[in-house]
């Protein structure tokens, strides 16, 4: 046992509430981030210590009617992303694509591995590849000829272009979408991108339109952060933080008293 068991418990509470507050601050900071998904903190109580077993013998035939089962604090177990859809924001940029459904775009990272995003604010790079705002390739790779007059992306993901002097559309390829059994298990890596993990499961690749949703050209998905809700949770988190700080204050007071009286 440390100096006082409640010290560690109060500290665990402070730490958990501090992280919770940081998470809410991050949600609020991303209220305008395209396709940002808010997170919800999940708390767990730490394992209990059985200091006195219920029914243990205490003296002669006396038995404790109930034991002493002491909790050891709390921890922030996970920040669960809430993947409910954000509002639709019309942009009329032909390379802005919103997913209406649960799917993700596949993006090739600089090291060749894949990541996943719902941020469809694409543009073209110098050779005509469709890339994200960070310049990463959309997979499967689609190259748009540099003299293209018009780009069309159908709800089912077919990318076609109209070239000068032609009145018919020419198909370039199809954008595929990935879905996951447990999308809450995806690992957010920043820049609106996620990595697959053991918890998320393998991506299921499909053309848009089946179960992964359809594409909407000329629109973006806005952040799903609810400002009012976040501000209310912030008040709650602050009070919880203060209550834990108060615990530490009381414990400090009694330790100080002990040292004064016994010292």
């Amino acid at each position: 046992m440390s100096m006082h068991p409640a010290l560690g418990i109060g500290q665990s509470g402070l730490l958990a509430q501090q992280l919770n507050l940081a998470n809410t601050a991050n949600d609020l900071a991303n209220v305008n981030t395209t396709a940002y998904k808010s997170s919800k903190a999940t708390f767990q109580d730490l394992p209990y210590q059985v200091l006195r077993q219920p029914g243990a013998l205490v003296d002669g035939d006396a038995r404790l009617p109930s034991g002493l089962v002491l909790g050891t604090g709390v921890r922030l177990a996970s920040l669960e992303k809430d993947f409910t859809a954000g509002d639709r924001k019309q942009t009329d940029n032909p390379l802005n694509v919103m997913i209406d459904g649960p799917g993700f775009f596949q993006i090739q990272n600089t090291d060749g591995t894949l990541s996943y995003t719902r941020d469809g604010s694409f543009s073209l790079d110098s050779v005509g590849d469709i890339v994200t705002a960070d310049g990463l390739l959309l997979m499967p790779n689609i190259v748009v000829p540099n003299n293209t007059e018009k780009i069309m992306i159908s709800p089912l993901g077919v990318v076609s272009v109209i070239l000068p002097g032609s009145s018919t559309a020419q198909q370039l390829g199809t954008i595929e979408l990935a879905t996951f059994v447990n999308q809450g298990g995806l690992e957010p890596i920043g820049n609106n991108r996620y990595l697959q993990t053991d918890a998320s499961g393998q991506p299921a690749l499909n053309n848009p339109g089946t179960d992964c949703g359809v594409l909407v050209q000329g629109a973006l998905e806005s952040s799903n952060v609810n400002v009012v809700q976040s501000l209310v949770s912030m008040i709650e988190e602050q009070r919880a933080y203060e209550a834990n700080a108060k615990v530490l204050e009381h414990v400090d007071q009694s330790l100080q008293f002990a040292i004064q009286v016994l010292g």
Partner: protein
Amino acid sequence: MSIDKAIYVAISGAAEAQREQAIHANNIANNNTAGFRKEYASQKALPVYNSGLPTRVYSATYTPGNDFSQGNIIETNNNLHIYLPGDGFFAVQGNNGVEGYTRRGDLQIDQYGQLINGNGYPMLNAGGSAVVLPPSKNVNISVNGEVFVTPLNATNDNMVLVDQLKLVNPDVKLLKQSNDTLFRLQDGTIAPNADNVGVRSGAYESSNVNTVDELMAMINSVRRLEMGLKVVSAVKDNAQSSSGLLGI
């Protein structure tokens, strides 16, 4: 005679007050933990009589049980968040594989398709084994705990019944808290399925800790600790002055 026995009695009271503070600190730390049930703290007199006057009554802190009143219901509109509007518990599989009971209903699906709660414990079905879902687009849990899904490869939006959650309603006086945070029956038996427990979805139950009550209890036990220490200091003063008188 050695040092006055009063010093040991007093310091036991102070030490036990410390443990009580730890219980209240734990309740406060968990006032945002879903499904957490406040733990009661109590003191018991432990008389130790031998020759002489019956003055040695030690105190012991113990945890007589938990407050099973309902906590706040947090609306989330997430189909995987469920709560019990009345009495009862969900059955989950604890760390050691033994069935335990909890009111925590913020569910998730893990990589094996198992339905787990926010503590990571798999939810059990009426037969006592973990609930496993096929890859699905949509999960719905009915009032009596039936789990319906729309499979990912389904061509229509019809929901199919895949399993039913085990719901129990044991006498809360017979429950004890285990070290993996779950409740179990004191005699180690498994609670039978109960059909009088209702489930609602779209919200989960939070902790039932009242922070103000706990802070008050905390102040109370801080003062008790101080009183115990005060007695120790009085005994010390007595011993000092008698040593002075006797010229030791």
